[in-house]
């Protein structure tokens, strides 16, 4: 018996699988490309009504310049193709930046982690993107490449500035994320990540929160606070950071910072949860992460 062919909407008119960065950028240069790596977002979204996608499918998985976790002078680079499983398994990251494997551990499921990439989590620009949250706390920059006058041109954008709205970034047509870079935190750095939803696995965060600071006992400096799913993009909560900066963590400060955070975020009501509940969660996670910081 021959089964009937499943008719999927016809979106792609060309397919290329480049094996160098230059070839990938050439395939994207006219702005008509759709890039795919892990596919975990794209293959769900590509057939959504009203979504416009480029007619040329560019499979970037075989571009060596986009691979690997590498230590640079004073920093670490995660190639765009690094999967959440690679983050989770990386001895380098476990030692130097444990918040990244800890976040990957809360990311979707094993099967998704085996496919989903660092670059994809940034490019998809979800307000609830999990991996973006610790990258915001690390002051990471996103490395981009495009083809200019036949040559590979690069630039960087701080991750805190790249998002312009749900699913939207400052990237221009033809531009590709090559990786993210950040300085290795020095001694005394503490960082944590919290998120939830109705079930622990495979959850699109109702609220996610990343907290990082250099701690001297219970006194914080260089405080970074990042949140997901409380605004049109993942955000840094700079006003709340200012309340915490240089202060000693105690119950009164936690209360004051929670009030500041409540004023700084703008969560929405949707089918996943109410704005009221998201505000409660943001307070609860800030309290939890500050308490964890005290507990060491």
């Amino acid at each position: 018996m021959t089964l009937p062919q499943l008719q999927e909407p016809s979106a792609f008119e060309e397919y290329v699988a480049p094996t160098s960065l230059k070839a990938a950028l050439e395939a994207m240069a006219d702005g008509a490309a759709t890039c795919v790596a892990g596919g975990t977002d794209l293959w769900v979204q590509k057939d959504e009504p009203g979504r416009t996608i480029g007619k040329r499918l560019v499979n970037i998985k075989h571009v060596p310049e986009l691979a690997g976790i590498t230590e640079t002078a004073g920093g670490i680079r995660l190639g765009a193709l690094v999967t959440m499983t690679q983050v989770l398994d990386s001895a380098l990251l476990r030692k130097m930046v444990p918040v990244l494997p800890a976040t990957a551990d809360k990311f979707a499921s094993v099967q998704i982690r085996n496919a989903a990439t660092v670059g994809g989590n940034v490019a998809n620009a979800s307000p609830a993107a999990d991996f973006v949250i610790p990258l915001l706390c690390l002051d990471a920059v996103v490395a981009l490449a495009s083809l200019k006058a036949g040559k590979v041109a690069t630039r960087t954008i701080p991750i805190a500035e790249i998002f312009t709205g749900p699913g939207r970034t400052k990237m221009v047509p033809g531009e590709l994320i090559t990786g993210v870079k950040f300085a290795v935190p020095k001694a005394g750095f503490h960082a944590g990540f919290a998120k939830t939803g109705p079930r622990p696995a495979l959850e699109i965060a109702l609220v996610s929160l990343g907290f990082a600071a250099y701690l001297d006992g219970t006194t914080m400096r260089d405080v970074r606070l990042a949140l997901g799913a409380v605004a049109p993009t993942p955000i840094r909560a700079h006003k709340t950071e200012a309340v915490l900066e240089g202060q000693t963590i105690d119950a009164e400060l936690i209360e004051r910072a929670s009030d500041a955070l409540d004023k700084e975020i703008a969560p929405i009501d949707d089918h996943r949860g109410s704005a009221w509940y998201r505000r409660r969660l943001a307070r609860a996670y800030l309290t939890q992460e500050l308490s964890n910081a005290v507990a060491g």
Partner: protein
Amino acid sequence: MPLQVDITFTLNGRETTLGVPADASALTVLRERLDLAGAKLACGEGECGACTVIVDGQSLNSCLMPAVDLAGRSVLTIEGLWTADGVDPVQDAFIEHGAVQCGFCTPGMIMQIRYLLDRNPNMSEDEIRRGLEGNVCRCTGYKKIIDAVIAAGRATAA
């Protein structure tokens, strides 16, 4: 007519060449072009794990994998677990422990468990539960599945 791309890959140990639609998922091609109906389409968005296959040693949701990306890879589906020596220890353990009710999640469960046991045959119950977070079963309550994984782990380690 969607764009067709010719690909060659290793499917359950055998080199396979065919044309696949650029829009299709690996799952669609496995089920509807290659008549391998073990991997199941349920949610179609990576939430349920019924479509799990092992690609180059990594368990993946084949519903989210572009079929064109199969090119050059080595794919193991539930149909490939069977060997001349019989069924895989995971399959044996599922039979032994009655870890199957309706059976719809079973191929995906077994492939994910095979992947997990290849990485660590001595998982704790907590590690098993975490490893199966991406596989949904609506019948068994998971208890018998977890019993089967523990037994299969012993058989794999032995």
